[in-house]
């Protein structure tokens, strides 16, 4: 197998020229060693985003210890997302997505790419302290810095019907069949933070159904209502736990989201278990 360097050089040139980015296969293309070679930025910049990359914001973002995030999606020229199944958007080969994490300065940028054979690959680029360059993290991640391994990426992103979790019908404004505003807030939070694993496809065995469906919103809301009502104390205990072996989600969170969890407590206390009084 070749080392892929000529291919990467050609790809970088195409990006620099503003051309459509080629669709990679895993065999022909190693992951770029530097974020600037993934097609996120305009040539020569690590600030200016290429016009072809659409910035998007999910309505129920994942809590990641209070870090701020920006997200972009690239679709190859002339292609589009097949939205015929509202719960399983089909992204074209060559799709790329980035998510940048910041906390004062840029920390890391995560990268997802759909290859020519339809498979997806995942990588993380770590920013230097000056914020001038982001380089590919090792496959095993950098645990001491909270940088996930590529296997860790799969734990969340392979559990949902489509791996770009924030770019879906529900996340881009789809309605949730909630009966009250705090139920909507709670269900949305659970969808964005838990639903990618706690759904019938990935972890039916847990008996928790926390993902909302754009195709059958009433049905998914009913399942969420029932499973949260049955397991409310355990859910609240685990999402607030200081013990990382117990805390949910099990990845990417070191500090419980006290503010974000408030709607869930209100929902349980006011709607699901009003007879049980105050809850912690």
């Amino acid at each position: 197998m070749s080392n892929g360097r000529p291919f990467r050089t050609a790809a970088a040139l195409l990006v620099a020229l503003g051309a459509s980015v080629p669709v990679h296969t895993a065999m022909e293309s190693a992951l770029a060693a530097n974020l600037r070679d993934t097609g996120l930025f305009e040539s020569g910049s690590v600030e200016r985003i290429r016009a072809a990359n659409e910035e998007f914001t999910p309505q129920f973002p994942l809590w990641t210890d209070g870090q701020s995030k920006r997200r972009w999606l690239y679709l190859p020229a002339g292609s589009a997302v097949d939205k015929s199944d509202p719960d399983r958007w089909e992204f074209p080969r060559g799709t790329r997505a980035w998510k940048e994490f910041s906390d004062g300065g840029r920390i890391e940028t995560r990268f997802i790419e759909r290859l020519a054979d339809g498979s997806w690959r995942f990588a993380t680029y770590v920013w230097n302290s000056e914020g001038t360059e982001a380089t590919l993290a090792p496959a095993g991640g950098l645990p001491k810095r909270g940088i996930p391994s590529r296997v860790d990426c799969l734990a969340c992103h392979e559990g949902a019907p489509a791996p770009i979790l924030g770019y879906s019908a529900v996340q881009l404004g789809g309605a949730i069949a909630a009966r009250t505003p705090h139920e909507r807030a709670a269900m949305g939070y659970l969808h964005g933070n838990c639903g990618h694993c706690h759904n019938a496809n990935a972890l039916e065995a847990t008996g928790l159904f926390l993902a909302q469906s754009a195709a059958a919103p009433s049905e998914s809301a009913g399942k969420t209502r029932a499973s949260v009502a049955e397991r409310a104390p355990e859910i609240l205990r685990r999402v607030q736990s200081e013990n990382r072996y117990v805390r949910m989600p099990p990845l990417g969170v070191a500090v419980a989201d006290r503010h974000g969890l408030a709607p869930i407590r209100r929902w349980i206390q006011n709607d699901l278990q009003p007879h049980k009084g105050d809850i912690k």
Partner: protein
Amino acid sequence: MRFMLSVAAILSGALVVPDALAAPAASDPVARGKYIVSTSGCHDCHTPWVLGPKGPEPDMTRALSGHPSDVKMPAAPRPAEPWLVTIAATNTAFAGPWGVSFTANLTPDKETGLGKWTPKNFRDTIRTGRHMGRGREVLPPMPVMVYNNFDDADLEAIFAYLRSIPAVKNKVPEPLEPRAALAAK
């Protein structure tokens, strides 16, 4: 002293030695799974050990049911270096630099064991080192990296056997982080 004797006996293998098992055909997954479970050390940690008339032995009335919830566990003593790990006499609880881990209930009890798991949940756990492939990491001393060498058919056979054994209701305690383990002292 009893603990030390138990561990020494366990490690030396000078224990109750069961009859040798013949390797069954792969066409019988349950028999194949029993063979693998019985030859790969699963009982060593997932079946609680008791002191019997012949010395420490696995309590097969609670086979593969994990750390017994009825055993009150005081905080683990911190061993002096270069000792690293403390093991309970049941051989089902382990304290080390990662905190304290308790072996899982592998029986098909629906509430406290693997009763609701699918073969895929089990395979994903061994393949990724995370519960069901997505949850928290499987903690030491579970040798996931060793069992990851089983092929998929072997893992499915193990799971088929685990589904065939008696369900034991036993809610294993949650693991403790190092700081939690220290705070318990």
